Protein backbone atom coordinates (compact mmCIF):
# COMPACT_ATOMS: atom_id res chain seq x y z
CA UNK A 1 0.00 0.00 0.00
CA UNK A 2 2.87 2.32 0.93
CA UNK A 3 4.50 1.44 -2.37
CA UNK A 4 1.46 2.47 -4.38
CA UNK A 5 1.18 5.73 -2.54
CA UNK A 6 4.88 6.51 -3.07
CA UNK A 7 4.50 5.90 -6.81
CA UNK A 8 1.43 8.13 -6.91
CA UNK A 9 3.14 10.95 -4.99
CA UNK A 10 6.08 10.78 -7.40
CA UNK A 11 3.83 10.74 -10.48
CA UNK A 12 1.89 13.78 -9.32
CA UNK A 13 5.05 15.56 -8.13
CA UNK A 14 6.76 15.13 -11.50
CA UNK A 15 3.67 16.31 -13.37
CA UNK A 16 3.40 19.48 -11.24
CA UNK A 17 7.12 20.15 -11.67
CA UNK A 18 7.00 19.76 -15.45
CA UNK A 19 3.81 21.78 -15.96
CA UNK A 20 4.11 24.55 -13.39
CA UNK A 21 7.55 24.82 -11.85
CA UNK A 22 10.26 23.94 -14.35
CA UNK A 23 9.92 27.10 -16.46
CA UNK A 24 10.05 29.23 -13.30
CA UNK A 25 13.25 27.75 -11.87
CA UNK A 26 15.38 26.43 -14.75
CA UNK A 27 18.11 27.23 -15.40
CA UNK A 28 18.55 29.97 -12.78
CA UNK A 29 18.02 27.78 -9.72
CA UNK A 30 20.00 24.79 -11.00
CA UNK A 31 21.20 22.50 -8.21
CA UNK A 32 18.77 23.81 -5.57
CA UNK A 33 16.10 21.60 -4.04
CA UNK A 34 12.36 21.94 -4.60
CA UNK A 35 9.83 20.28 -2.31
CA UNK A 36 6.37 20.04 -3.88
CA UNK A 37 3.18 19.42 -1.93
CA UNK A 38 1.33 17.23 -4.40
CA UNK A 39 -2.02 17.90 -2.69
CA UNK A 40 -2.01 21.71 -3.01
CA UNK A 41 0.57 22.14 -5.78
CA UNK A 42 2.55 24.65 -3.66
CA UNK A 43 6.32 24.41 -3.69
CA UNK A 44 9.34 25.50 -1.66
CA UNK A 45 12.85 26.18 -2.96
CA UNK A 46 15.96 25.91 -0.75
CA UNK A 47 19.68 25.12 -0.91
CA UNK A 48 19.29 22.34 1.62
CA UNK A 49 16.93 19.34 1.42
CA UNK A 50 15.78 19.40 5.02
CA UNK A 51 15.28 23.16 4.95
CA UNK A 52 13.02 22.73 1.90
CA UNK A 53 11.05 19.99 3.70
CA UNK A 54 10.80 22.11 6.90
CA UNK A 55 9.43 25.14 5.07
CA UNK A 56 7.04 23.05 2.96
CA UNK A 57 5.73 21.41 6.15
CA UNK A 58 5.15 24.84 7.71
CA UNK A 59 3.15 25.92 4.65
CA UNK A 60 1.05 22.75 4.39
CA UNK A 61 1.27 20.60 7.57
CA UNK A 62 -0.89 17.88 6.02
CA UNK A 63 0.90 17.95 2.66
CA UNK A 64 2.27 15.01 0.73
CA UNK A 65 5.79 16.06 -0.13
CA UNK A 66 8.00 15.19 -3.08
CA UNK A 67 11.63 16.27 -3.50
CA UNK A 68 13.14 17.39 -6.82
CA UNK A 69 16.59 18.82 -7.61
CA UNK A 70 16.41 21.60 -10.17
CA UNK A 71 18.06 20.65 -13.47
CA UNK A 72 18.69 17.02 -12.50
CA UNK A 73 17.03 13.85 -13.77
CA UNK A 74 16.83 12.60 -10.18
CA UNK A 75 17.44 14.38 -6.86
CA UNK A 76 20.33 11.97 -6.15
CA UNK A 77 22.30 9.14 -7.65
CA UNK A 78 22.96 5.90 -5.84
CA UNK A 79 26.10 4.32 -7.22
CA UNK A 80 28.18 5.64 -10.11
CA UNK A 81 26.43 5.00 -13.40
CA UNK A 82 28.51 3.02 -15.87
CA UNK A 83 27.22 5.22 -18.67
CA UNK A 84 27.05 8.51 -16.78
CA UNK A 85 29.06 11.63 -17.55
CA UNK A 86 32.73 11.23 -16.75
CA UNK A 87 32.54 14.52 -14.87
CA UNK A 88 30.67 12.83 -12.07
CA UNK A 89 33.58 10.46 -11.49
CA UNK A 90 36.29 13.02 -10.97
CA UNK A 91 35.14 14.39 -7.64
CA UNK A 92 37.94 12.78 -5.65
Amino acid at each position, binding site marked *: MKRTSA*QEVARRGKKIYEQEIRAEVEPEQEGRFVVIDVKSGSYTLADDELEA*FDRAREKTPEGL*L*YLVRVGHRA*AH*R*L*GVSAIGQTGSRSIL
Partner: protein
Amino acid sequence: MRGSIVSDGREATVSLKVIGAGSDPDSSNIQVAIDTGFTGHLTLPPETVRSLSLPERGFVEVELANGGMAILGVYEARVLWHWRPVRVPVYEADGAPLIGMSLLRGSTLTIEVIPRGEVTIAEGSQGLET
Protein backbone atom coordinates in the same frame (compact mmCIF):
# COMPACT_ATOMS: atom_id res chain seq x y z
CA MET B 1 36.24 9.29 12.68
CA ARG B 2 37.99 6.00 11.98
CA GLY B 3 36.92 2.65 10.63
CA SER B 4 38.47 -0.17 8.72
CA ILE B 5 38.29 -1.81 5.34
CA VAL B 6 36.19 -4.94 5.39
CA SER B 7 38.62 -7.36 3.81
CA ASP B 8 36.22 -9.84 2.26
CA GLY B 9 33.54 -7.36 1.11
CA ARG B 10 36.17 -4.83 -0.10
CA GLU B 11 34.17 -1.98 1.34
CA ALA B 12 35.38 1.06 3.25
CA THR B 13 33.21 1.24 6.36
CA VAL B 14 32.93 3.40 9.45
CA SER B 15 30.74 3.21 12.54
CA LEU B 16 28.15 6.00 12.60
CA LYS B 17 25.96 6.89 15.56
CA VAL B 18 22.42 7.51 14.28
CA ILE B 19 19.97 9.21 16.65
CA GLY B 20 16.19 9.18 16.24
CA ALA B 21 13.82 12.11 16.79
CA GLY B 22 12.02 13.24 19.95
CA SER B 23 13.11 14.23 23.46
CA ASP B 24 14.24 10.74 24.47
CA PRO B 25 15.31 9.26 21.15
CA ASP B 26 16.75 5.83 20.49
CA SER B 27 20.16 5.72 18.95
CA SER B 28 22.21 3.07 17.28
CA ASN B 29 25.80 2.62 16.19
CA ILE B 30 25.59 1.48 12.59
CA GLN B 31 28.35 0.19 10.36
CA VAL B 32 28.01 2.18 7.13
CA ALA B 33 29.83 1.80 3.82
CA ILE B 34 31.30 4.90 2.18
CA ASP B 35 29.88 5.30 -1.35
CA THR B 36 31.38 8.19 -3.30
CA GLY B 37 28.94 7.40 -6.12
CA PHE B 38 26.02 8.28 -3.84
CA THR B 39 25.33 12.02 -3.94
CA GLY B 40 23.06 12.11 -0.85
CA HIS B 41 23.77 11.82 2.89
CA LEU B 42 22.67 8.45 4.28
CA THR B 43 20.64 5.40 3.35
CA LEU B 44 19.21 3.05 5.96
CA PRO B 45 17.22 -0.17 5.51
CA PRO B 46 13.50 -0.15 6.41
CA GLU B 47 14.00 -2.10 9.65
CA THR B 48 16.45 0.51 10.99
CA VAL B 49 14.15 3.37 9.97
CA ARG B 50 11.36 1.66 11.98
CA SER B 51 13.46 0.71 15.00
CA LEU B 52 14.66 4.32 15.43
CA SER B 53 11.13 5.69 14.74
CA LEU B 54 12.52 8.21 12.26
CA PRO B 55 9.96 10.83 11.17
CA GLU B 56 8.91 10.64 7.53
CA ARG B 57 9.40 13.76 5.43
CA GLY B 58 8.30 12.77 1.93
CA PHE B 59 9.44 10.96 -1.18
CA VAL B 60 12.23 11.27 -3.70
CA GLU B 61 13.28 9.67 -6.95
CA VAL B 62 16.88 8.54 -7.31
CA GLU B 63 18.87 7.32 -10.27
CA LEU B 64 20.48 3.93 -9.74
CA ALA B 65 23.87 2.76 -10.95
CA ASN B 66 22.29 0.86 -13.83
CA GLY B 67 20.46 3.97 -15.04
CA GLY B 68 17.13 2.83 -13.60
CA MET B 69 15.05 4.98 -11.29
CA ALA B 70 13.64 4.20 -7.84
CA ILE B 71 11.25 6.05 -5.56
CA LEU B 72 12.37 6.10 -1.93
CA GLY B 73 10.92 7.40 1.32
CA VAL B 74 12.79 10.32 2.89
CA TYR B 75 13.15 10.41 6.68
CA GLU B 76 15.06 12.59 9.10
CA ALA B 77 17.67 11.59 11.67
CA ARG B 78 20.56 13.08 13.54
CA VAL B 79 24.03 11.60 13.22
CA LEU B 80 27.09 12.21 15.32
CA TRP B 81 29.46 13.75 12.79
CA HIS B 82 32.81 15.13 13.88
CA TRP B 83 31.53 14.80 17.48
CA ARG B 84 28.46 16.97 16.86
CA PRO B 85 24.85 15.98 16.20
CA VAL B 86 23.85 16.98 12.66
CA ARG B 87 20.39 16.71 11.08
CA VAL B 88 20.43 14.69 7.88
CA PRO B 89 17.90 13.39 5.37
CA VAL B 90 17.78 9.59 5.36
CA TYR B 91 16.73 7.64 2.27
CA GLU B 92 15.06 4.34 2.97
CA ALA B 93 16.76 1.71 0.81
CA ASP B 94 17.25 -2.02 1.06
CA GLY B 95 20.74 -3.34 1.43
CA ALA B 96 23.71 -2.18 3.44
CA PRO B 97 23.60 1.34 4.92
CA LEU B 98 25.57 3.87 2.89
CA ILE B 99 26.95 7.33 3.48
CA GLY B 100 27.41 9.58 0.45
CA MET B 101 29.07 12.74 -0.75
CA SER B 102 26.57 15.18 0.82
CA LEU B 103 27.53 13.98 4.31
CA LEU B 104 31.25 13.84 3.42
CA ARG B 105 31.22 17.35 1.98
CA GLY B 106 33.73 19.52 3.83
CA SER B 107 35.70 16.53 5.14
CA THR B 108 38.90 14.82 4.09
CA LEU B 109 38.48 11.12 3.40
CA THR B 110 41.52 8.84 3.38
CA ILE B 111 41.31 5.12 2.73
CA GLU B 112 44.17 2.67 3.04
CA VAL B 113 42.91 0.16 0.52
CA ILE B 114 44.46 -3.01 1.91
CA PRO B 115 42.85 -5.72 4.07
CA ARG B 116 42.01 -4.15 7.48
CA GLY B 117 43.36 -0.86 6.17
CA GLU B 118 42.43 2.36 7.92
CA VAL B 119 39.60 4.67 6.90
CA THR B 120 39.78 8.20 8.26
CA ILE B 121 37.25 11.01 7.85
CA ALA B 122 38.79 14.24 9.10
CA GLU B 123 37.05 17.55 9.45
CA GLY B 124 37.98 20.16 6.83
CA SER B 125 41.38 19.78 5.19
CA GLN B 126 43.32 18.87 8.36
CA GLY B 127 43.92 15.32 7.17
CA LEU B 128 45.92 16.52 4.17
CA GLU B 129 49.62 17.07 4.52
CA THR B 130 50.21 18.54 1.09
